[in-house]
């Protein structure tokens, strides 16, 4: 008896939205770190090389500005591509059934089962099927991105959207929430990239749309 081959399939709207979101998130994090450095809310700064916004020394010499102008221009460009791709991803996920089919069901019990299995390296990855940890992570990162957009809006337009900032305990609270959600997204990206490195065929599927796992040798 042979099981059907494991196969991952991503429809083109999912792939398009995924890659635009991925690029936008990188732009938002890199430029956000440069903007953070202009007025840190915690007692540390990000190294300039890890931030986006051009050469700091050159900008200082030319503009008397540590490249924050360019970082802000990136940030307020990336916000549009992030918002649009996020919206596209979510609308497609709901309308085409992707979310109901692949992200549900999920519950604390299945999450705990798969989470402890993963920690003991006993969680098998089946191409084309998400385990409970992945499902929770995908819901989580979509929620974190929504939180980043709402807190970001409260920081960008504290007057026009007032009293939106109160949702976060005020303007300073919104900055802290924006930072913490960014940290959560960084954590997601790190885990996501490690898992992709462990199962490279998932990258193939997200680029080409389809990938099939190699046939498993017969065990006797």
């Amino acid at each position, binding site marked *: 008896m042979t099981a059907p081959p494991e196969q991952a399939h991503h429809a083109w709207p999912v792939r398009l939205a995924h890659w635009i979101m991925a690029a936008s998130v990188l732009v938002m994090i890199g430029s956000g770190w440069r903007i953070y450095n202009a*007025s840190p809310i915690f007692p540390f700064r990000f190294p300039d090389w890890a931030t986006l916004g051009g*050469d700091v020394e050159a900008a200082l010499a030319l503009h008397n*500005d540590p490249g924050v102008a*360019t970082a802000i221009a990136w940030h307020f460009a990336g916000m549009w591509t992030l918002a649009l791709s996020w919206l596209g991803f979510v609308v497609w996920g709901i309308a085409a059934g992707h979310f109901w089919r692949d992200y549900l069901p999920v519950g604390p019990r299945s999450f705990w089962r798969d989470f402890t299995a993963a920690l003991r390296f006993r969680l098998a990855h089946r191409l084309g099927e998400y385990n409970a940890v992945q499902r929770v992570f995908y819901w989580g990162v979509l929620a974190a991105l929504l939180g980043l957009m709402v807190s970001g809006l409260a920081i960008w*337009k504290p007057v*026009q959207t007032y009293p939106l900032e109160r949702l976060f305990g005020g*303007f300073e609270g919104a900055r802290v929430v924006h930072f913490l959600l960014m940290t959560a997204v960084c954590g997601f990206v790190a885990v996501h990239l490690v898992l992709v490195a462990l199962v490279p065929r998932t990258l193939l599927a997200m680029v080409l749309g389809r990938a099939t796992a190699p046939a498993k040798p017969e065990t006797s």
Partner: protein
Amino acid sequence: MISRRTFAGRTLSVGALTLLTGCDVSDTDAVQAALARVSSWNDRVQAWLFSGRRLAPTFPESAAVPDFRFNAFYAADRSPVLAPDDYRLTLAGRIADKRPWTVARLQELPMQSQVTRHVCVEGWSMIGKWTGTPLSVFLDRIGADRTARYVGFECADGYYEGIDMPTALHPQTLMAFQLSDRKLPTRYGYPLKIRIPTKLGFKNPKFVTTLYVTNERPRTFWTDRGYNWFSGI
């Protein structure tokens, strides 16, 4: 298929370039031009979002800091010292009565106070108490063309700013003569600062010596250095 793969590849390589090597495409002309185009689009979005009636939040007087943070493109001790007897506010552009104003005459204008929040583009914010005359009252007094698109400012410290007319006519946009109930201290722009609680801090010019009304968008100091023009909050 090829184009999609190429797209994904390019997206990946831009990301990898930034994330892994720290090499940065920001300083290329093409990227700067693209970012400038998005910035002008953002100007339009912000002008559309701006409401001439929505007021910036105000705070109790106890929330106002007595020692406001100094911020400029020079050190505080390089602030220009303007002698009240020599100072004149020069008027230009689409204004009926262009006679210059002395400090004494400016201070006879009707005054009101506001406790509002100053939000810096760097991210920090600070609440202060400013006292002065609504700019819209002054614009009426001098017979300014309220249908013009912009109001511009030139300053004794070499700064230059400009705002859209809807913001200039906003009831909380003040010609501020006082900070924390005291005559505007030198480094905060004596004798005249424009206080705009609906704009980022850098659009609040100090040491204003010329005010003009125009249909051509005024050059502004930080926009010439890459910052967004409208910069509303």
